[in-house]
Structures are given as C-alpha cells and as structure tokens.
C-alpha cells in the first residue's frame, strides 16, 4: 500500500532524512517511532505531497507521489501534528469545507460528515465553534477531517501528543477502530502507543531507519538475557556470591526507605529458568522473599538500545528501575 524507497531530504546542508526505506501492507497499522528531530514529520510530509523529497520514490496505493500527486492526495487522509483547523468555523462547517476540497461529491457530503462525526463521536459538539473546543475534541475533529473522504491510507503525525491520559486512551481506541478499513501510519515518540495499536514498528533515528519489525519481534531481537526482579525483607544480607553459585548475576541492589526492605535484579542467560533455585536460596538464607517476577524487556528499552547504539556503539545498559517497572507486565 505504501512503498518508500531511498528517500532523502536535505534542507540546505542539513540532511533531515537519509535513505529511508520501508513498506506498509494494506490494512496494516505501522508505527513510525523515533526521538524528536529524527525525521518523522519530514517523512510524513513527503508521503502526503506537502513537501518534495530531494531524492527517492514514494508510492501510495500504486501512485507515485511526485508523478501523480493529485491521485495520492485523493487517497490519503493526513492529520498533521497541529490539526489544521479554522477556529472561526463550527465543526460541521469545517467538515463540510474539508469534504468539498477533498473531492467528496456534493450530494454525498452530508452522509460523509455523518459517518465521520459518528466514528469519532463528535455528536454533542458538532454545532460548536472550533475555537471553543478543548484540545481533545480538536484532535478528534482533526481525525474526523482526515477520514472524511474515506481514504484507504491514513497518515497521523503524533495523534496523541499533548492530550491527557484519558483522552490518549480514547484516541488510541479510535485509531484501533479505524485500523480495519484503513492502512495507517502513525508517528510517535511514546512507546506504549506503538505496542498498543500497531502491528509494525519502524524505528528511525537521525534520519535513518534503525529497525523494522513487529513490537514483539523487536524486543526478542535485542534480548540477550532475562532478568528477574526480586523483592526481599532484608536487603543488606543479600550476597552476590550466593546468587552466582546458582548461575545468576546480581546486577542491581537497592534498599527502599522502609528499614532493610528492598529489591534486587538478577540477570540470567537466555533460556535458563532460575526461579526455583533462586527461591530456594533466598528461603535458605532467610532473606525473606516478598516477591519475584521475570522482567520482559519493554519496547522502551529496545528503543533506547537501538537509538543509542546507533550513536556511538554504546553497550546497552541495564534499564533503570523506573523504566523496567513501567514495562514489566509479564
């Protein structure tokens, strides 16, 4: 559905993106992931025909963006980072205008608006001026404007940025709901978003594609070892030699404010299940086992690893406790 080959864009001497290649299959939801300034927005703007690339080709729904921009624009719904809204218009007036310039036939405009308003649940604010809408509702109007001409391809640039957590979940649900009928590319620098809604992740950094895979595949790809997180009553007595003796490595040890109680991490080679032996040791040593759970490497860590390795070949450090806690569900 979307085919990007050797895409390059230079602004003067600055290379914004360099040799970007990826494809998105029909019906797929693809996350475009990268830190700020990685070239996500530039790539999306080229995909939509807003700016021209320096070199490389983009084909959307079988049409080349440079050769037949009109055909591509008819088939793409694009939500830029700032939704392009006219504050002086009401939601319905705005959607009618967008439908008209997107080429929806006059007789079908009303039906198209009804469908879009229904899909993003804008019913109760549809008569209000856009200037008076909250950020969450504006984002929804932005989504409605992107789907109004029922395009096969949706390109969403950071659709959840600046929203509160409840709104973020709502918008994600909306995107999931759209996933069946549309091929979607969404850019984000928030990782759980990619795991939550996407089948494919393209990680970009410094204008280059660093990795393309499924979210699960990515974490498997970089996982060299597994980590067990253990919480015990008396952390001071934990001895790394005891753990080494059963085949693990004590990698982190931290005490909580509560007297003596704390947590430590044990790294184990891949495919070895150390839980039973570890539990036995802890009980025998009388450290007071409170909790033990395996930690899967979250996408966040994968992302950090990939984007930092790219920079200076730095070896992946162990995730900090905050990061790992947020990503350790399994």
């Amino acid at each position, binding site marked *: 559905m979307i085919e990007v080959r050797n895409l390059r864009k230079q602004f003067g001497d600055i290379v914004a993106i360099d040799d970007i290649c990826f494809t998105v299959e029909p019906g797929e939801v693809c996350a475009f992931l990268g830190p700020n300034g990685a070239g996500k927005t530039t790539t999306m703007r080229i995909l*939509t025909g*807003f700016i021209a690339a320096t070199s490389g080709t983009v084909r959307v729904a079988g049409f080349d963006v440079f050769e037949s921009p009109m055909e591509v624009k008819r088939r*793409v719904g694009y939500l830029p980072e700032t939704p*392009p809204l*006219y504050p*002086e218009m009401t939601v319905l007036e705005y959607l009618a205008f967008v439908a008209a*310039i997107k080429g929806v036939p006059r007789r079908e405009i009303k039906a198209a608006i009804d469908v879009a308003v229904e899909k993003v649940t804008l019913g109760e604010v549809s008569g209000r001026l856009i200037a008076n809408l909250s950020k969450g509702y504006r984002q929804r109007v932005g989504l409605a404007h992107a789907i109004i001409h029922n395009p096969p391809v949706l390109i969403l640039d950071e659709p959840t940025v600046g929203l509160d957590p409840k709104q973020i979940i709502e918008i994600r649900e909306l995107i999931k709901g759209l996933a069946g009928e549309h091929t979607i590319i969404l850019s984000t620098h928030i990782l759980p978003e990619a795991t939550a809604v996407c089948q494919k992740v393209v990680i970009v950094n410094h204008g280059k594609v660093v990795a393309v895979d499924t979210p699960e595949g990515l974490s498997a790809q970089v996982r060299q070892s597994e980590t067990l997180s253990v919480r015990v009553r008396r952390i001071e007595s934990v001895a790394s030699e005891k753990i080494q003796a059963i085949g693990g490595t004590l990698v982190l040890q931290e005490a909580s404010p509560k007297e003596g109680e704390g947590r430590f991490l044990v790294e184990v080679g891949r495919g070895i299940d150390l839980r039973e032996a570890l539990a036995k040791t802890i009980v025998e040593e009388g450290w007071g086992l409170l909790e033990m759970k395996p930690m899967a490497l979250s996408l966040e860590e994968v992302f950090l690893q990939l984007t930092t390795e790219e920079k200076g070949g730095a070896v992946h450090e162990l995730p900090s406790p905050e990061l790992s806690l947020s990503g350790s569900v399994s």
Partner: protein
Amino acid sequence: MKNIWTLAFKELRIYFTSPIVYVVAMVFLAVSDYLFVVPIYRYASMFSQITRFRGGGELPEINLHEAVFRPAYLSMGVVLLLMIPCLTMRLLAEEKKGKTLELLLTSPIRLSEIVLGKFLGACLVYAFLLLLTLHQPLVLMGVTTVAWKLLLTSYLGLLLMGGLLIAWGLFASALTENQIIAAVTSFGLLIGFWLIGAMAQSTGETATDSVLHYLSVTEHLDNFIKGLIDTRDITYFVSMILLGLFLTHRVLESHRWKSL
C-alpha cells in the same frame, strides 16, 4: 472551478463571521462618505455664487459628475490603498500561522485554485464594500439628475483597481506568516503604485516619464472615472492582477521545496 468557489466561500464565511469586514466597512464608509460630502459643498457654494453673480435667469451648466463624483472617487481610490491591505493581510499569513496551509496543500486541489479562490473571496468582499457606497449617487438622485453611465464606468474602474490591490496584497500575505508584516508590506507595495504617478508628474517628458505614467494606478482609474473605457487601461489592470497572482503562486510553490 468548483474548488475555486468552495475556497472563495470559505473566505467569505471567515470574513463575515469575524469582525474584519464590519470594521473595515465602517471605517471605509465613514471616510469615503466624508470625501463625497466635501465636493458636494464645494459644488453647492460654487452654484450659488454663480447664480448670485448672474442675478438669476437661466441656470448655468455645471457637470455634476466632473465636480462631485470624480474627485470623490479619486480620493476613494486612495482610501482603498489603506483599506485593502486590512482585508488581504490574513489571506495566506493566517493559513500559515494556523498550519491550515498544510490542509490545503495536501488536498487534491491545485495551487492555482487556492490562489484564485482566495483572490475571488477577497474580491467579493470588496465588491460588497463598493455596493455599500452606492447610496451616495442614490442620495443625489433625489435632488438632481445623475449620469448613470459615467457611474457605471467609474465603478468598473474601481473594481479593476481593487482587483489589482487585492492581487498584490495577496502576494504580500504569501510572503510571511505574520499578518502585521503582510499588511505593512502591502501598504508599501500599494502606496508604491500610487506614488509612481506622482513621480511621473515631477519628471520631464521622457521615455521613463511615459513608463511611470503607464504604471501609475491613478492615471488608469481616472480614465474610467471620466467615462473612458480604453483597452490599454483594461490591459494594464488585468496584466497587473495576473502578475500579482502569478508571484503569489510562485511563493506558495516554493514552500514545497523548503520546510515551512
């Protein structure tokens, strides 16, 4: 063509739902009515002086159009130089600032349609302003005969001049995302069109003189007000409008090649 009207109506909607048109219309009408009343008083006093001098008898022939409408419309032209930038400054600068240009440029519409739609929208608002000034001849019609055909050519001239000012105001608006900069730039450009005429009068009878004369807006407008429809004047206005629109198109096209 359908897209041009869609865009023009969008502009109209924004003009009339925001206070812009009402404020501009109020100021424009107040100033142009004042500039209309002044020659009427002059005309009236001249008339009474002549009748007193002649001591009654047959009334003298004074051309009402020449004495009242011509000076009034020429000064209305100057007022327009100041009013039009207030209408045009938002046309593209606002779209850039509000990021809505991204919507227009990623929609299946041509750049030329965007430019023409904006131009047409502003022209319709301007035509509405001119329509409001029609009360001036209507008032005079009650007390004397008005030369309607001359008024018709005058309004045609004013329409064409407005089109020129709008096209160049649109160009100024395409250059920036700041409306104040757009307004000041168009003030400069439009007053330039007017000053060229004054410059021509101060130089001698040379080739540059005739070029400057040709470029001056007021010369061409005056011909229309005098009731003269000359293809040279029409050519002047139409070609200047097209040049302004073409430059606007080029500026917008250049955005595709750089970041906004």
